[in-house]
């Protein structure tokens, strides 16, 4: 029994090394001067710690721009999504009206559409509005999320009607009741969706690749891909420093809020 346990853990450790290897190698390369990178010998720790790569990534390169763009875009999307999803999900969960069935079917239908299918017309629309290569092009197409509406509607259905009635008796307006009485009750679902949304859009590559051409507007994945194709061959250290800087925010957040992250990211299982 004991032996088998050790074997299982050894196997997991072997797999774990493969999982962690790129992270370690990324950090290692990002701290090495160029002459230590281009050598056939392998050393995890640099002989000579060199933070110049980070300085270069931030000042000469665009690492800071990528990170800031990433924050602007993900938070912009998230705020817009909350503002559109919360009221819609609330009404769909708690009100009776004639078009409800039709609207719910629309929401479910959107869940079936993969993002690559809508790309061409949405791109045309943004081109027509002269919005290509702007933050708006990165944010507006994701202003709402059918998945978010679907998810939040389920949560809103579990809020007791008495609570909403009590708030009305106490003199709260409907908007106030929604945002300050009902919304706090579904905080876990909101947090899970928020993590899902931020992780998805921070890491999204396809859409920024289409609508952004200038490096000043590049989100983290697009930014590093431009870096890699332009000077990746020579500036490996700076590139690895950039990679570290754009990978770390989510990795650190994950390590802090492990359970919420797993919950939020696996949510997409319902969506695919």
């Amino acid at each position, binding site marked *: 029994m004991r032996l088998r346990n050790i074997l299982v853990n050894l196997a997991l450790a072997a797999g774990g090394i493969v999982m962690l290897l790129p992270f370690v190698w990324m950090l290692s390369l990002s701290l090495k001067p160029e002459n230590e990178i281009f050598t056939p010998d392998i050393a995890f720790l640099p002989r000579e710690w060199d933070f110049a790569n980070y300085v270069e990534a931030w000042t000469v390169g665009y690492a800071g721009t990528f990170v800031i763009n990433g924050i602007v875009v993900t938070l912009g999307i998230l705020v817009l999504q909350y503002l559109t999803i919360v009221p819609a999900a609330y009404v769909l969960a708690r009100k009776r009206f004639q078009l409800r069935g039709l609207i719910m079917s629309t929401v479910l239908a959107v869940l079936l559409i993969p993002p690559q299918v809508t790309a061409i017309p949405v791109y045309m629309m943004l081109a027509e509005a002269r919005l290509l290569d702007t933050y708006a092009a990165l944010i507006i197409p994701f202003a709402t999320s059918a998945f978010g509406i679907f998810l939040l509607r389920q949560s809103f259905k579990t809020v007791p009607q008495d609570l909403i*009635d009590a708030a009305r008796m106490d003199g709260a307006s409907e908007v106030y009741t929604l945002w300050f009485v009902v919304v706090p009750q579904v905080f876990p679902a909101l947090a899970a969706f928020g993590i899902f949304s931020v992780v998805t859009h921070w890491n999204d590559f396809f859409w920024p690749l289409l609508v952004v051409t200038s490096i000043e507007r590049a989100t983290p994945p697009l930014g590093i891909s431009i870096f890699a194709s332009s000077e990746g061959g020579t500036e490996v250290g700076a590139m690895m420093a950039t990679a570290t800087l754009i990978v770390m925010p989510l990795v650190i957040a994950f390590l802090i809020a492990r359970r919420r992250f797993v919950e939020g990211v696996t949510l997409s299982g319902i969506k695919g």
Partner: protein
Amino acid sequence: MTGISLNAVSKRFGATDVVRDVSLDVAGGEFVSLLGPSGCGKTTLLRMIAGLETVTAGEICMGGETIQHLSPSARNIAMVFQSYALYPHKTVFENVAFPLLMQQSMVLRLPWLRHLVPNRHRVDAEIAARVDPVCHLLGIDHLTARKPAQLSGGQRQRVALARAMVREPKLFLMDEPLSNLDAKLRAATRAEIIDLHRRLGVTFLYVTHDQGEAMTMSSRIVLLNEGRIQQVGTPLDLYNDPANLFVAEFIGLPKINVLDLHADGKEGRIDGIVLREMPSEIDGVPTPRGAQLHVGLRPEALQLCSEDHPHAMSGPVHIIEHLGNEAILRVSKDAKDICIRVQPEQAIGLSPGRTVSFRPAWERALLFDANGSRLRATRLRAAA
């Protein structure tokens, strides 16, 4: 003191009439219970008064003014919900203060943003000055920093009461407020609510399905069934002088015994016992020969007797309930279960299976026609 009056109020959900043509006058300061089985419309009626449901037809007036177009909060009515409906994310203090906070300006109501308002401290102090005495009165002042999840059922109940009281409403609505408490706490809280009513002196409307609560707490009871008022009266009125068979059967524990009576002209027969002076007409229609009437006999209107008494009925005892100060005998008779309330010593020595004889106290019998309406004019008199 403000009372409330309902004038032909009805409520319809789709095709179902939930409340039908309810008219009721409640005087200021009264404690009135809305009693009835589940689905009788009592909660809907309460919610219409609260403003949480629209009124399909009819009028609701408070202090002589119609209120049904007012929003719930504009009616100056407080409500204690069955589930208490405490805001789980707010502390006890914040829960109680919530109705007062909602009376402030928009910015002051917003979390975080309110810190920008310069006179915030003065407003907060005013709110605290009203919240603290209420919490003190209900004995929850040591709990004000807690969240509802950290409270016991009884404590949550008090917080719900405090939140209702803090606005100093003219009318208190309570929707089965004791149903989530355990039996012991329920009795204690019952007494506290009566005490609270006396101290505040405002009108209480109390919804319950528990006749014990309604009987002990209220000055008057409104008994509802299928959306209609069956009877309005004091607890003793409903018990002693029920308007119909439904009221007679709903009020009283153990339930009233109902025997079938064959009317035969001026005579009636129950089980071979001949009754004289039967009503010759009911609602102006001559009583047909062989009409079925119902006689209601409360368990204390039956007494044990010797088997040779002229009006003796008999049957085997199948359950004996010793309650200490009295005993209840359940006797099987013609597939019916007859309940007899007896002195405790009368039950000693009886064992299930023994046949006992009993006779009705005719002067306490209640007569109902075939539709269940009470025939008040008729006193039953047995032939010698």
